[in-house]
């Protein structure tokens, strides 16, 4: 894989704070490549993030970057997008950040269909605080706050977003970074609220406790489980059991909120 454009990285801020084996760097690199691929001007791109391991990505990217409060990244981004609709906003969140404390903002950003590109790094765990279960932790998996395995059922994040009105939903994973880059790139080109769920590994706070092995084993399992949308259409229910759909799950056209707003006031 070719080198990342140094212009888009704050190389002086490296090394990053993430643990050995963490998938956040892979997803961040895919995001940077997708921004390159989209051909945006550097000054038009804004990275917004919440709180948690994944949200620290903003600090390493050489754009205008906004590291907000826990769960509120999409609400900050909504204000900024409405004030400056010409800017291209990428919103990086973790699974807890986006779907627990930020769940309300997530469904309402989807409902408005505001042109924000949400990239959710889903490692199924709260990593920064040391391994608590999130709304995306699969039932039965262990966490410090679910020592016997969580009894709760997880959200299907993309279906949640679709139900709330999101017009683009895709899933990729850290084991297939090239595909992930393409998915983020397609999300960027989509007008409206887009959601890219990037499955990622947390060997330290999740893998170790659940005996999933190290980063390599976790990535291998991620890759083995992933089935593209195209391939899945040829498989039956039994074959799809324990598989994870990857690719663009849905993409539909609908009026975009900031554009509709400015049109309604005669400024578009």
């Amino acid at each position, binding site marked *: 894989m070719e080198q990342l454009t140094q212009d888009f990285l704050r190389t002086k801020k490296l090394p990053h704070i993430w643990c050995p084996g963490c998938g956040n760097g892979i997803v961040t690199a895919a995001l940077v490549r997708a921004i390159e691929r989209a051909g945006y001007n550097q000054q038009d791109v804004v990275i917004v993030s919440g709180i948690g391991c994944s949200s620290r990505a903003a600090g390493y990217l*050489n754009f205008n970057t906004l590291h907000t409060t826990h769960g509120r990244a999409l*609400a*900050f*981004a909504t204000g900024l997008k409405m*004030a400056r609709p010409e800017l291209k906003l990428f919103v990086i969140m973790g699974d807890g950040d986006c779907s627990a404390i930020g769940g*309300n903002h997530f469904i309402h950003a989807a409902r408005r269909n505001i042109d924000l590109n949400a990239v959710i790094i889903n490692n199924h765990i709260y990593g920064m605080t040391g391994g608590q279960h999130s709304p995306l932790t699969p039932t039965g998996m262990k966490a410090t706050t679910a020592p016997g395995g969580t009894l709760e059922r997880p959200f299907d994040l993309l279906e949640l977003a679709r139900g709330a009105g999101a017009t683009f939903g895709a899933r990729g994973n850290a084991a297939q970074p090239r595909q992930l880059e393409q998915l983020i790139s397609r999300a960027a080109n989509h007008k409206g609220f887009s959601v890219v769920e990037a499955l990622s590994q947390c060997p330290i706070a999740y893998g170790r406790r659940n005996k999933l092995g190290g980063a390599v084993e976790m990535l291998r399992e991620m890759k083995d489980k992933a089935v593209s949308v195209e391939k899945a259409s040829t498989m039956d229910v039994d074959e799809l059991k324990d598989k994870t759909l990857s690719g663009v799950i849905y993409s539909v056209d609908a009026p975009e909120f900031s554009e509709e707003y400015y049109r309604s006031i005669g400024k578009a």
Partner: protein
Amino acid sequence: MAETKPVLMQGNEACAEGAISAGVRFYAGYPITPSTEVAELMAAKLPELGGVFIQMEDEIASMAAVIGASIGGMRTLTASSGPGFSLKQENIGYAIMAEIPCVIVNVQRMGPSTGVPTAPAQGDVMQTRWGTHGDHPIIVFSPASVYETFYLTIAAVNLSQKLRQPVIMLLDEVIGHMREKVLIPEAGKLLVEKSSDNVPADWKPYDEKGLTPLVPFGFGHYYHVTGLFHDQYGFPTGDPPQVERALDRIHGKLEKYRDEIVLTNYIGHKEPRVVIIAYGCTVRSARAVVKKAYWQNRLPVGLLSLQTLWPFPDKEVAAIAKQADVIIVPEMNMGQIVGEVERYACGNAEIVPLNRYDGEMISPDQISELLGRWL
């Protein structure tokens, strides 16, 4: 300043009109009694002006959206009341830390909790000071009339921009819903401080040398904004000297401009024996008392009204305490600002609280009766 066009309006309307006059073009909010009229007026007016009105999914999101829009370069306002104001606190702290200008209106209602939503009270004075966590600076204005609401909102927007500091407009239900005459200045006659468009090449968002204007996102200055302690470029730091310097910086700017921020007004006898210190709607009852006692009967009585509650008018209170024997502090709460008065009076005057917390205003008679004990 030439003032024309007397208009009859509500305090909440004056707040919205003042904000618009000061260049506010972005409003994000959530419905709550008794502040909803601010949102309704903004929803009606901002689109015509090319601005943005957005009703968010909750109070937390409203505060977040306002900060986001400010970073985009717009002048912003949000309004709420007790319960909603509580929800905004975390993001208010963020705006203080990240030095993002914005104005937050809290039209107080009777609390705690859901309380009496339609009853007036002044119970949020300490919440405006210490509502968000950590050792933070804050500016709070408390108007006593519709007219003052209009002008203090303009001052709030200007100061917020100049100091890159959130400013709170603390109204009470009486001021918010009362209708009074306001003289709206002609267009162009208001002092609206322009944001600087002179950005030096070596601009830093949190320059160690002092206050710098906020350069909005999207103009090629690639800085970082975070609620973490940060260096002069905005990047996170846990380095003790830098942490201390950053906290000194956000407090220092308020100290430096203290005399522009702290606004008070004294009426009454030049050598008063009894002084009333009041703010918000309570000023009105106190003024009625002083009118009768001093202007009619020449008794040694005065009123120090506080337009600024935080930073607290320490020097002004200390000075008046040296003159007066007794200071009466009427408040529609169980005693909040009275503690500050005591602190700065330094034992130079007897401090007498007068509290009412039944959802009704303090009447002039209540104050007069108390006043009678010393005159």
